[in-house]
């Protein structure tokens, strides 16, 4: 039984119910030790079930093994959690497929699994001659790439937009953003911690260009993310305009909201600081938010207000929905359509080698 299935939650509720009934049954027959033990069982099953339900929303621990590897104090970088493979759907014509790979980061020293979405065209005879555009998709915190797959249903959204001709066939990379499930990196290089910025902008990119049939040039690469991942997409696109042509933020803030360790959360890792103190790069940003949520709304409006040509900003809003999966589900199709329109098309041309 997987950690995030509804059955697991039902089992948790049943355990809580049984523990409660047991408490009533043993109360008059046992003394302090027996009573305390059952009360503990009730509290444990109750909080455990609530925690499982929360986890199934954010997918912080997408599998039991990832949970136990973390609680045993093992370093994920030495022993990367291998998420269970999502349901294989490569055999259905017209549908993309996903594959889980491990990306070893020689520069960042981060070695993490990554889910890769291959559009249906990737496996066709015509597609074998093509180099596809690429989008890196970032998850929120707490969270893992599994939330994109299981909670935001990214595969169906991409399949539908590509099949409708509203998006070009695109390879989508879903990397991890931290070696420690509970450490929020905001995709920065944490002093004395995970070098996530290097991993995502150098190692993951390098790996994809070396192993996949993808474009290697800046106009062929885009970023997207929700919540903390939205900040990641904006921040990394603005910091690396030589690598990415476009970034889409779904309910992302303009500030990282963490301590990076070198004070850069107030300077080079603050989008408001960057837009105020550095010349705007010639890239495109998409900012999406729900009007009833203040953090993402105010953060996005700050970015919009400070953005100057040649930096281009497009916005998209929903009237209500807060900071939730329901909002991001609504924004997926518009944001991916926009990204595709701002990235280069699949090409047969040989790609320049990347020197860095």
């Amino acid at each position: 039984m997987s950690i995030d299935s509804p059955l697991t939650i039902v089992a948790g509720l049943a355990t809580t119910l049984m523990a409660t009934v047991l408490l009533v049954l043993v109360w008059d027959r046992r003394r302090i030790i027996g009573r305390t033990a059952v009360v503990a069982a009730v509290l444990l099953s109750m909080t455990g079930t609530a925690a499982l339900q929360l986890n199934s929303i954010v997918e912080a621990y997408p599998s039991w093994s990832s949970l136990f590897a973390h609680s045993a104090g093992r370093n994920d970088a030495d022993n990367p959690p291998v998420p269970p493979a999502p349901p294989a759907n490569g055999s259905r014509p017209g549908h993309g497929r996903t594959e889980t790979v491990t990306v070893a980061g020689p520069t960042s020293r981060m070695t993490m699994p990554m889910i890769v979405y291959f559009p249906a065209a990737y496996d066709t005879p015509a597609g074998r001659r093509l180099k596809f555009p690429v989008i890196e998709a970032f998850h929120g915190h707490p969270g893992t790439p599994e939330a994109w797959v299981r909670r935001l249903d990214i595969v169906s959204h991409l399949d539908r937009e590509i099949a409708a001709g509203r998006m070009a066939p695109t390879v989508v990379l879903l990397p991890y953003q931290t070696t420690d499930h509970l450490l929020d990196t905001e995709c920065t290089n944490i002093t004395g911690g995970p070098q996530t910025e290097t991993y995502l902008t150098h190692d993951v990119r390098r790996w994809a260009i070396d192993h996949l049939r993808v474009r290697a040039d800046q106009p062929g690469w885009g970023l997207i993310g929700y919540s903390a991942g939205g900040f990641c997409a904006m921040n990394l696109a603005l910091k690396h305009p030589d690598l990415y042509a476009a970034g889409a933020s779904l309910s992302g803030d303009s500030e990282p909201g963490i301590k990076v360790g070198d004070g850069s959360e107030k300077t080079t890792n603050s989008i408001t600081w960057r837009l105020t103190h550095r010349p705007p790069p010639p890239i495109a940003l998409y900012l999406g938010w729900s009007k009833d949520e203040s953090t993402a709304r105010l953060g996005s409006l700050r970015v919009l207000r400070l953005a100057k040509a040649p930096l281009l900003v497009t916005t998209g809003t929903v009237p209500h929905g807060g900071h939730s999966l329901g909002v991001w589900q609504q924004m997926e199709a518009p944001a991916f359509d926009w990204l595709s329109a701002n990235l280069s098309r699949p090409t047969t041309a040989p790609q320049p080698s990347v020197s860095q």
Partner: protein
Amino acid sequence: MSLTGRGIILVSAALTVLLAAATVLLWRRGGRWRPPIRVAGLLAVEVLVVLTAGLIVNRSERFYPSWQALAASHSNENVAKPPVGRLDGVLGTSRVVRWSPPEGSGWRLAAPAILIVPADYAQHPDRSYPVIVVLTSADRVASIRAEATTIADALTVVAVPTRGTTAAELATLPARLAQDARAADTGWAIVADTAQTTLARQWHSLVPARFRLVTTALATAAERLPPALDTPVRLHP
């Protein structure tokens, strides 16, 4: 009552305390109904404890700021109306046309511009195309026109500027073309001969939202363009 207000948390907390007290008071009562009363009381307290904790967290983090937010609907996506070009009828039968809109007299071109559309232009009426504008000399028009007919999924406009052609006047060209053919809003390219580079760069800087790159080779531009896409799903800006 607001989902993130103090009121709802106070009510939930008060109910928790009340039910806990009631459960304790009734603990030794009820006769043969004693076990179900105890179980019901305990379960109610458990649910209320979790509910209160959830409300407190939601108040501080604002995941669901309103009752409406709990039921985020999927009705807000709107697929914009497919564009129609005034020349779409003509372009259905002829892939190469002379394009000289009445509003384009200010461009001061040496001859009417030539518009070339891809072979399957008429078969995709919902599709918008990125555009390559070629600024060249009169003697190269024929060869560029031949090369442009091989480009898939893009519109090509071949224009021969004169000394009187200014970037400021050309700035109106994208909007004019969007009226006449299904041209995309962004992702355009300018291909300019060496003699036209300055004009191309000036034009590019006037409408950066439109133009993606300035280059000298048609093939480079075609390869770097965005895809030709059907009308996207859009949210309210």
